[in-house]
């Protein structure tokens, strides 16, 4: 049975949420325009609340992927994705990614999951922004030698529903090498 760890973590996060400055669930993402020219593949998606509303009208409830997307969409105010693939190792600017990580070190953001895979040199960090008992946003930073991806979702996010989407897109679920170590950080650690 699949462990619902993120849900458990979320509850503990909500219980121990830090007080203080209002969390900023929308990150300031670099444009990476110069990077797009060097990349073999690039994805840059900016969907604010009005575009999400527009997209919602065109989701077909008869199609599984559209119906699943509609469920996830409820409560979201924005989705921002930057994903770039290169044909050489580590040609993307680490400084820009570190700047995004600095924003995620601010009060209100907590890291849920930290994955480090030595074999694939793949790292995945998942952060959640909370205020009181309310989830305000999600951020994912994933990096491999020839690819990096930053995802920022603003609004109330259901991680389980998001994860289940993959099977509906015609893309099989990915298998991670068994040597990957996942550090699960309970509470409010950064």
């Amino acid at each position, binding site marked *: 049975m699949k462990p619902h760890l993120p849900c458990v973590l979320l509850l503990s996060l909500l219980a121990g949420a830090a007080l203080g400055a209002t969390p900023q669930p929308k990150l300031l993402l670099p444009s990476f325009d110069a990077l797009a020219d060097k990349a073999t*593949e690039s994805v*840059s*998606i900016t969907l604010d609340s009005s575009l999400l509303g527009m997209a919602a009208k065109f989701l077909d409830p008869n199609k*599984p*992927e559209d119906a699943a997307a509609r469920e996830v969409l409820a409560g979201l105010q924005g989705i921002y994705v930057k994903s770039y693939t290169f044909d050489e190792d580590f040609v993307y600017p680490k400084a820009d990614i570190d700047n995004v990580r600095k924003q995620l070190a601010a009060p209100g953001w907590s890291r849920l999951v930290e994955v480090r895979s030595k074999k694939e040199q793949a790292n995945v960090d998942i952060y959640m922004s909370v205020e009181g008992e309310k989830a305000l946003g999600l951020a994912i930073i994933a990096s491999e030698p020839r690819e990096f991806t930053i995802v920022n979702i603003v609004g109330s996010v259901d991680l389980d529903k998001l994860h289940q989407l993959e099977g509906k*897109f*015609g*893309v*099989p679920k990915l298998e991670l090498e068994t040597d990957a170590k996942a550090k699960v950080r309970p509470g409010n650690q950064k």
Partner: protein
Amino acid sequence: MHSATSTADEHLASARKGNAGSFEALVRLHQRTVHSLALRMLGTRDAADDLAQEVFLQLHLHLSSMESAAHLAFWLRRVVTHRAIDRLRSRPQVAIASIDDEPEIVDTHAATDDPLLQHRLRELIGELPASARAVMLLRYQEDLDPVEIARTLDMPINTVKSHLKRSLAALRERLSAAKRISFEEFGYE
């Protein structure tokens, strides 16, 4: 010596003046592309015949706005893919299990043809979401580059590239799961 393009331009010029024979020549020139795109998008011969015929009827109505043979080819690809996507969106999405209506393609140059693999690939293409399917067909059936695909589908270039990347990854994954296909030959791990 006439090039293929100049012949097509001549047929277009003549068809615009009402020459039925020239219009029929244009149909013959492009029916392979239009019908194959329709068939691989929609999945059944009847639906493909209907759509492809409609596209040529539209062409006949819009001949006067065709600027050149190249423009006409672009227009045909654009209309057939857009209309196929519209039709797919307006009906419940059903994966195309098998395009058995595909006519057999006899190619005397293809000494390395693997009919089973090719059939499987066509099946898998038919299981992709509509936009991804259109991108893959324009790339690998029509040999368009991502910029041309973006223009044809009115799609951002980044979205085209994403569709190509993810679809190829999905195809690789599914092929590797099929026990009867040998991948040592292709150097897959």
